[in-house]
């Protein structure tokens, strides 16, 4: 086709464009979302929460605790030496000239405690309002050992013999079921799965619905349908947002695993199913998201303005929120948890938790996934019909019944 403008004829490659339109739509969704400050902020926020959840417990409890302790020349020898077997405590002594100086340091918080001569030859551990229990134990053990050594020496025992006696190892622990998982940890990680699924499905579900209703509200849709089949439009929207949702989830899960690996290696060691459960969770997320995404698109199509979205999206919102709250009642293994791990709307949140606890056979999550897939087929068909029927009805928001019937 020739034109009188300076532009060269436009090559229209029809076959290719018919195949790829969904991808053009998906690309626009992705770049639009990445440009959205709200989305970027929510990603950073979730990342911070996940990293905090992984690191904070380690920072608060694990590792070696360091203490400063004030002593006088009389008491220094009593707590200077760590007995064999002392763990996770490092005590640094500060020798002060007298009792008053030591108490002043305790009051000012410069030291955690002071070891001082007390009434009747008894030694006192002095703290401000309390003495950290780990430090108190360590000081007790040190003082006892020093006193025992002094006692032995007083009755003429060779110090080397005395040291040997004291070096006798304390009773060792032997666990009959060392692999049994700490139920609190499983519950917390299970919550993390539920919250992540819930949050991301809501964020991206709303994004899809808004994107659909905006095209209706601004009438862009009128232009789009002259060139894109409605189905490709739907696929593009869901794919674009779905890919971003998956990327966000993968980022959060990897950050969480890396955080656990860095900060709580012993937890990971005691719970080797964490990475496997995380992997299952991602797979469940993909199918679960696909199952719900079309419904969000339909909710968007049934609204005519952004303000209507609140009401048309409520049913879908319930389909996400009710299972989320139900999943909180499924902490402990039992019938409720088992049932919820197969119900398609709740299984993405509950089945990974069961995998985490380690009491499922391989076929169980597979069956659960198959149920989600079957439900997705039905829901997608329903949602597609609602979407296609409502998309060009720009006058008012539609009831479920009207949207369903229109084309029938």
């Amino acid at each position, binding site marked *: 086709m020739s034109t009188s403008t300076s*532009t*060269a004829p*436009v090559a*229209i*490659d029809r076959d290719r464009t018919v195949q790829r339109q969904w991808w053009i739509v998906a690309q626009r969704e992705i770049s639009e979302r990445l440009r959205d400050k709200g989305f970027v902020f929510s990603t950073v926020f979730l990342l911070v929460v996940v990293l905090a959840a992984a690191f904070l417990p380690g920072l608060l409890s694990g590792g070696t605790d360091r203490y400063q302790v004030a002593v006088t020349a009389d008491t220094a020898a009593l707590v200077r030496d760590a007995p064999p077997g002392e763990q996770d405590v490092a005590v640094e002594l500060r020798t002060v000239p007298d009792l008053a100086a030591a108490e002043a340091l305790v009051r000012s918080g410069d030291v955690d405690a002071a070891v001082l001569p007390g009434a009747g030859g008894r030694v006192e551990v002095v703290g401000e309002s309390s003495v950290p229990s780990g430090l108190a134990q360590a000081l007790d053990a040190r003082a006892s050992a020093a006193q025992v050594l002094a006692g032995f020496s007083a009755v003429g025992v060779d110090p080397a013999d005395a040291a040997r006696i004291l070096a006798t190892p304390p009773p060792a622990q032997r666990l009959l079921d060392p692999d049994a998982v700490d139920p609190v940890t499983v519950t917390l990680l299970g919550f993390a799965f539920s919250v992540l699924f819930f949050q991301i499905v809501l964020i991206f579900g709303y994004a899809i619905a808004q994107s659909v209703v905006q095209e209706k509200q*601004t*009438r862009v849709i009128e232009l789009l349908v*002259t060139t894109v089949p409605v189905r490709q439009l739907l696929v593009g929207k869901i794919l674009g947002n779905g890919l971003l949702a998956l990327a966000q989830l993968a980022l959060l899960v990897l950050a969480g695993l890396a955080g656990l690996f860095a900060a709580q290696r012993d937890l990971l060691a005691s719970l080797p199913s964490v990475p496997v459960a995380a992997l299952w969770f991602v797979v469940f997320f993909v199918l679960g998201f696909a199952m719900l995404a079309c419904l969000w698109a339909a909710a968007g199509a049934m609204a005519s303005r952004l303000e209507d979205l609140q009401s048309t999206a409520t049913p879908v919102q319930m389909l996400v929120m009710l299972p989320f709250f139900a999943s909180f009642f499924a902490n402990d293994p039992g019938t409720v948890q088992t049932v919820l791990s197969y119900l398609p709307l709740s299984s993405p949140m509950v089945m990974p938790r069961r995998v985490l606890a380690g009491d499922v056979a391989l076929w169980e999550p597979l069956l659960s996934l198959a149920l989600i897939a079957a439900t997705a087929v039905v829901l997608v068909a329903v949602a597609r019909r609602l979407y296609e029927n409502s998309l060009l009805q720009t006058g008012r928001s539609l009831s479920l019944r009207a949207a369903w019937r229109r084309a029938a």
Partner: protein
Amino acid sequence: MLVLDAITRRFGDRTALDRVSLAVPDGRMVGFVGANGAGKTTTMRIALGVLAADSGTVTFRGRVPDLAVRRRFGYMPEERGLYPKGQLLDQLVFLARLHGVAPATARRRGTELLERLGLGDRLKDRLESLSLGNQQRVQVAAALVHDPELLVLDEPFSGLDPLAVDAMAEILRERTRAGVGVLFSSHQLDLVDRLCDELVILRAGRVVAAGEPQGLRRSRGGSRYSLEVDGDADWVRDVAGVRVLQLDRGSAVLELLAPGADQRVLAEAVRRGPVRAFAPVLPTLSELFQEVSR
């Protein structure tokens, strides 16, 4: 050529279009005129496949257009629609790509169109930051960016200032010279008169007049004459087969009701004195419109 043949469309009990037929030949500019609610927008949406007809057919170059063919149409909807928060060039590139234009070509054409429409320095601006008139120009660019073979424009001139109207008209003429058929609706009858090669008038869902404007006027206004003579023309009231529409001393507008009445009037006028003018009066487009819309 785009042909609509006997298109009927009902909304509930109301018949919005009743056997509407019209044609948009390649390289011709067809003006589409009608009162609000006459069915112009519905007709255009059916032509583009956005809306289905209850009966009747749409063909383009002899075949019922599928989506691949309709993709080569350019459309400007009545209710303007682009992404308010999107950058101008991005939107055009997106739409062009959806119409099958390669990304690099889309970018080049989008840039050229916006430059031509005086928006060359605002390629990266958001649509919502533009004045309404400028948003309208972007909408024009959106209809043209994939170099369509047919243009269907619903009220393309509404909201444009005179300069933009001229720019728009020039672009449309250029398209028709390149062989593109253009169907556009408008309420600005003088503009339609100036621009279009053919005219279709719609009233309450029916085509009441169609054809070249000049021919339409002649066929509709052929019985009306103006007469100017020296002295008073009062005598024409007595000529048989003549109805006087206007009379002001020596000048009169007459409607001739019987064949041969024109010659009788002229002969009588010449007999009475000098005749300065005697000619058929063509109705203006708005008179024509009012007549057929009655």
